[in-house]
């Protein structure tokens, strides 16, 4: 699951659960049946789990674009020079 997919999965999870809770409460209250509320909510939870837990294809529409290995070797990371690093350490040591 890619980054956008994870964001979408969490959003979907929260929206679906809250929506099924509201629907279940209203249904239970109107029918004056507590057990009916629990059944409707349980159905909502199962549906939410089925939609958001498995790694469905629509969570993978924005794959990360990694640089080619050969491309990365041609542009190495800039190295911090050894002298500057040592000087920094000494300074911070003195100040302490």
């Amino acid at each position, binding site marked *: 699951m890619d980054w956008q997919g*994870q964001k979408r*999965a969490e959003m979907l999870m929260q929206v679906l659960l809250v929506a099924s809770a509201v629907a279940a409460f209203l249904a239970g209250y109107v029918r004056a049946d507590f057990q009916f509320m629990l059944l409707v909510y349980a159905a909502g939870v199962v549906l*939410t789990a089925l939609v958001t*837990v498995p790694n469905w294809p629509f969570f993978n529409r924005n794959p990360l674009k990694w640089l080619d290995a050969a491309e990365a070797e041609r542009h190495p990371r800039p190295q911090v020079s050894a002298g500057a690093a040592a000087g920094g350490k000494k300074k911070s040591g003195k100040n302490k």
Partner: protein
Amino acid sequence: MHSFGHRANAVATFAVTILAAMCFAASFSDNFNTPSPTASVKILNINWFQKEANGNDEVSMTLNISADLSSLFTWNTKQVFVFVAAEYETPHNALNQVSLWDGIIPAKEHAKFLIHTTNKYRFIDQGSNLKGKEFNLTMHWHIMPKTGKMFADKIVMTGYRLPEQYR
């Protein structure tokens, strides 16, 4: 949310959190119910009335208890516990409560009832104060909800009097 296990865990924990909120809301909805229960108790007969060997008065009576408590039931009600108590004042105690009968109402269909019974529990005074005693019969009830807050209330019925003599 990057793995199957994390997403399953997130769904489970958030679902239970919301379930708690729903239970709270269900309990809160009980406040919108304004019950109008009725009750009446008739004393059909004083079967006997005597002083025990240890000096305490005891009375046995036949009661006719009728009540309609169906308006106490809401969708969040599990059961209603109801009891009838004799309440009176003595020089020693400002309030004496003696439970004479109780019952559990498991459903709204059984909340309207008429019961003909002798006192289920013994009506014994702490001492010998019952001769000619004026007393109240009070119907108490406790509403046990499926979730949340428990409610209790009562109906006081006044104007009952015990005989002046043992019999």
